[in-house]
């Protein structure tokens, strides 16, 4: 198990290096440390959302409402800022996290208590969240000059030469890593996705675990919502439109199995960075825009194909004696 995962991540890291080398042949400035830091910074939102999505996918669910959650939380933060421009950023952040968690809990509630398939629930809430943004904003934009300087400065504020946006991503990576590898909750995500029936026998409440996964995903989307709006200094109904697909793609490239129960934090971060590098490199390598989408898509399919190959060595029997355990005695 461990060596297999290692190879997958090593493979992905290797692919990332090859990609960077390829870009460098056409635009050497791309691999300058300052630019790589900028690419990481640009990918921060994707990393944060992908880690939330990863946890949801681990439990055999999917959260298509992350981008809409981001947009709604971002809009609420922006509107709040227009009426209370002097609100400390800590309060804004806390509100963003709380609102994101609430929206995630809505998804989780439907999946847990009403047993509706997650893809249906989140497809619905995705549209509902966008609709709510339209209602609260009246379809209007919140623009740069309407936001306070403090509000837009936070993600740009540099600590040790690295912007706060990147630090947020680093913090999220660390926390999710610790949670997934060091807590019983983290292990239960794997258990629920890997084998829900077995998970029940070990005393794990599958629905409740899935609910918590949605809450975590929502919380992270809320955080990204504020950061996104502050970074681009604009909020409107369609921000991050279609971004949920990038998030799912980052997870899949990173080795998360859509069937649940498999994947690692390192893999997801690498998957997100892989997409981030492609997104940032395409504008500078002077490739026809008509080809750009095709290239992005091909990269995803190649990565998934590699994942599928390395994942094929499954179907092992853990306990031979338990093979016929479910038969009546």
């Amino acid at each position, binding site marked *: 198990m461990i060596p297999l995962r290692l190879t997958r991540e090593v493979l992905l890291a290797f692919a990332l290096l090859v990609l960077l080398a390829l870009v460098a042949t056409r*635009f050497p*400035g*791309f691999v300058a440390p300052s*630019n790589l830091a*900028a690419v990481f910074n*640009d990918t921060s*939102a994707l990393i944060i959302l992908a880690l939330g999505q990863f946890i949801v996918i681990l439990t055999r669910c999917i959260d298509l409402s992350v981008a809409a959650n981001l947009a709604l939380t971002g809009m609420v933060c922006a509107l709040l800022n227009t009426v209370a421009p002097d609100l400390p950023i800590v309060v804004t952040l806390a509100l963003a996290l709380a609102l994101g968690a609430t929206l995630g809990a809505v998804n989780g509630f439907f999946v847990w208590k009403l047993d509706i398939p997650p893809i249906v629930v989140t497809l619905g809430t995705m549209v509902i969240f966008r609709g709510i943004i339209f209602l609260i904003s009246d379809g209007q*934009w919140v*623009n*740069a*000059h*309407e936001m306070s300087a403090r509000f837009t400065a936070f993600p*740009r504020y540099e600590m040790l030469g690295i912007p706060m946006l990147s630090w947020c991503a680093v913090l999220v990576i660390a926390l999710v890593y610790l949670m997934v590898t060091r807590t019983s909750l983290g292990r239960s995500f794997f258990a629920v996705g890997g084998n829900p029936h077995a998970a029940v026998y070990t005393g794990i409440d599958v629905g409740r675990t899935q609910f918590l996964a949605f809450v975590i995903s929502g919380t992270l989307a809320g955080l990204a919502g504020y950061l*996104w709006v502050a970074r*681009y*200094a*604009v909020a409107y109904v*369609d*921000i*991050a*439109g*279609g*971004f949920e697909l990038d998030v799912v793609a980052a997870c899949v490239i990173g080795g998360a199995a859509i069937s649940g129960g498999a994947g690692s934090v390192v893999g997801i971060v690498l998957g997100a960075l892989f997409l981030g590098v492609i*997104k*940032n490199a*395409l*504008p*500078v390598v*002077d490739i026809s*825009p*008509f080809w750009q989408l095709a290239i992005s898509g091909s990269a995803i399919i190649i990565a998934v194909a590699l994942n599928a190959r390395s994942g094929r060595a499954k179907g092992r029997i853990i306990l031979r004696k338990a093979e016929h355990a479910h038969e009546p005695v």
Partner: protein
Amino acid sequence: MKLSKLLITAATAIGLTASAAAADEMRIALVVKALGIGFFEAAAKGAEEAASELGDVKIIYTGPTETTAEGQIEVINALIAQNVDAIAVSANDTDALVPTLKKAMQRGITVISWDSGVAPEGRSVHLNPSSNPLIGNMIIKLAADNMPDGGDVAVLSATTTSTNQNIWIDEMKKVMPDYPGINLVTTVYGDDLADKSYREATGLLQTYPDLKAIIAPTSVGIVAAAQAVADAGKIGQVNVTGLGLPSEMAGAVESGASESFAIWNPIDLGYSAAMIAYHLAKGDAEATAGAEIPMGRMGALTLDDNLEGAMADPFVYDKSNIEEFKSIF
């Protein structure tokens, strides 16, 4: 008889304050997509300006409360019942209003459309705020005006398939020889997404270190490009210009990332619509191909074969007038 007519008028009209003394006045109805939109309120202001200039004109500013064709049909039926002299409409639907407007024309009411057009059989004349060649020329002119020594410019468009943007960029390329020393290096596509536009703009700044201007003929792109230039610390070196809305661009003009940009002026548009409606209703101008209809201070409207005409160059917004317009639209 008179009393019942008054009652019907009061019951059906929206926003009507007609008095019995209005008999010798010409009544022009300005029907907008919906009430309460800054852009149209400004257009109404322009129409009032035309009315006071003409003297014997009364403007009826009206429209539905939501941007629906059904709402507009109701409003127009009410105006027909009041027997107004002219209707100038910015339509919510090209075809849906045609039967109602035909009825109006049969009753001898002059019907024109402005801003958002009606199919030719439903109106006599359509007033476009500008024309593709004028827009194409304006966007390159705005860039060139701030580049006395010439240099490189790049275009940041919406999607590769956006019809309007492609036409404007083509028109711009046609007049490039009129601006010697201005060199168009590339056209990139931000897909009208804030994050992709931002990334493309950042890519432009990296790929072309000597870039002097980014021309974005799309409201999402121009805002994102201005933010990217500001974040890259290139304010003063790279000027962002193109088409945008004053409310959305106020921050960028304030920060200096954008020296100037253009879009139609709603006040001029309302003024011209009222002028055209007046002259057509009075009978001192005719709606035939090639005809010229006077528009007061805005010159004259020349009609093409579809009986359409372009009002003027897009209006330029910069530090001197952004404060006034940012609250309008």
